[in-house]
């Protein structure tokens, strides 16, 4: 198990290095630096700023300096937030995004798994068709349509929640629903397929033959195998949650990392864009390793390999 972990982590190093290199040169080749504004600034001030941020050095010097800064977590000052570093921004806003992501994941699992299990046990009845058609809707509808519509309906017309902000617990509901509904739909479909497969297996028949109540058969014997597709989906889902957070945090004015990333892209803060992309890449790689580990723990068949 430990060996598996170390190998996977070792494999991720060249990937991260490649991502860093691609991103660095992409960002570096962008026209219009952070100081090209509409307002005219005296050339010597721009010169001084360029010197301060180290933009005058040769590209390879900047490449290795920036690499070293990211490896030692000693980030340079940012151009769009004077006095702050990318580390400050990420440290402050990522917990918000993480919380949003956890709520969304909870929504996805709490809605998705029971719906999928129900649909699988009542296959080809109304209890199967109705939620599965709803799930199809949930998968096709984009986040930026669901979000404003939920805000309009529950926030403006019914007045149950605030339309934007991130202060108390009720502010979490709409963003979490918006982000989580797509995954709830997806999880429901995956659970249904997984459960249908498992429910036809011999060991489930054995459990039924032993005279166990159906509830125990489904929830204790079948569910464990039935949620396997969901577990392997969690890795890609995280990448999707990251992208989704850009939109959801913009809609609901959530002060998370996604909104900062979009803002950094809009204001051409190249070093913040670079640091954030690297952070996201590392996060997603780590999460994928964790998901693989979880799969091995849950599935005894994989453990032997």
């Amino acid at each position, binding site marked *: 198990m430990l060996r598996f972990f170390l190998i996977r982590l070792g494999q991720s190093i060249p990937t991260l290095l490649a991502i860093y290199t691609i991103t660095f040169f992409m960002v570096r080749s962008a026209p219009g630096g952070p100081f090209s504004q509409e307002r005219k600034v005296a050339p010597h001030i721009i010169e001084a700023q360029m010197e301060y941020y180290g933009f005058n050095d040769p590209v390879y010097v900047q490449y290795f300096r920036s690499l070293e800064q990211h490896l030692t977590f000693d980030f340079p000052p940012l151009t769009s937030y004077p006095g702050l570093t990318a580390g400050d921004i990420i440290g402050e806003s990522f917990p918000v995004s993480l919380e949003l992501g956890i709520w969304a994941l909870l929504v996805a699992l709490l809605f998705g798994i029971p719906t999928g299990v129900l649909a699988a046990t009542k296959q080809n009845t109304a209890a199967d068709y109705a939620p599965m058609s709803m799930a199809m809707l949930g998968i096709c509808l984009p986040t930026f349509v669901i*979000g404003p*519509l939920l805000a309009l309906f529950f926030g403006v017309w019914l007045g149950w929640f605030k339309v934007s902000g991130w202060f108390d617990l009720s502010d979490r509901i709409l963003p979490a629903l918006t982000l989580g509904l797509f995954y709830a739909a997806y999880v429901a479909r995956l659970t249904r397929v997984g459960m249908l497969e498992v429910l036809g297996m011999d060991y489930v028949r054995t459990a039924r033959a032993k005279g166990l109540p159906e509830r125990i058969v489904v929830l204790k014997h079948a569910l464990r195998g039935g949620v396997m597709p969901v577990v392997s989906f969690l890795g890609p889902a995280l990448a999707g949650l990251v992208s989704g957070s*850009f939109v959801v945090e913009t809609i609901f004015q959530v002060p998370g990392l996604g909104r900062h990333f979009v803002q950094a892209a809009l204001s051409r803060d190249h070093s913040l864009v670079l640091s954030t992309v690297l952070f996201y890449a590392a996060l997603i790689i780590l999460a994928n390793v964790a998901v693989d580990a979880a799969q091995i723990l849950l599935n005894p068949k994989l453990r032997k390999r």
Partner: protein
Amino acid sequence: MNTNENKAVSPWSEAWHRLKDNRLAMFSLGYFVLIVLLCYLLPLLYPISPTDQSLSFGANPPLSKGIELRYDAEQEEFDEFITEKEFVELYSENGESDLERLVADQQTELSGMYFSRSDRIHLLGTDSHGRDLFARILQGGRVSLGVGFLATLVSLTIGVVYGSVSGYIGGRIDACMMRVVDVLYAIPFLIFVILLMVVFEASKHQLLLIFIAIGAVEWLTMARIVRGQVIHLKSQEFVDAARAIGVRPFTIIFRHLAPNTLGPVIVYATLLIPAVMLLESTLSFLGLGIQPPNASWGTLIKEGADKMTVYPWLLIIPSLFFSLTLFAMNFLGDGLRDALDVKSSKD
């Protein structure tokens, strides 16, 4: 099946028959054709331009009519374009009864000003600049669908070339090329597109850039599909035969192998169009995509979301158009997959 057993049926017409039996897919196909025709042809007939503004008219709900105000009864052009509410509140002397008279006679005169009801009906209402929403949706649809098609074409080209070359050559080069795909997969598409949009900041070629940026990230899955197909195909006799008579690898790849991957490629491309439209709209929604005065469904939904508390139709109507089109494309793609699936047609 009612086709003549003796006549050879091409796989394509067989697939078409299967698709015709799928009512949801056919309905989606019909809807999709309708939307495309509406967006590209209707603007030629529709009397209102998407750029016509009237700030005094402002945002009005669907099916609203305006009132033209002329200071001189004879002149052709009107001086102001106002709403019925404005007429009652600002210009009328007897409140509602003036409006009733105006509606009955189509025109009226009040304190030297001439009012006439406009024969323009804003079918889906207007936005806060008084622009006709239906005209704007058609305009936005042209951009969204155009991006959908062209970016899909870009990613299709890259994916087919990359995948078939990688699959045909095989060995270490193949492993290397697929490793690149894996690395790119590790970055969420949206991050990558945003990066590309940051790098190529240019206002003039904005639209072109979006095609390239989206095409450049969405080819990955296409490349994998094509590579898998090519690896499966390249060990078959017709490729051996081609090689034996000395056909160059380039010709083998692009004349013999790539066309044979068409089925899965078409299915995936149909599903790619909505994915690309979604990506473009998401970008535009975030302010990184289409810039005003150009509009796409994404920017329209963004404008609607900003003003939904006062003008909800600006959010609901574009969302409806966009979602229905996405549904249709997804159902059509699923239907095509069932119809073209080689495995299911074997008995």
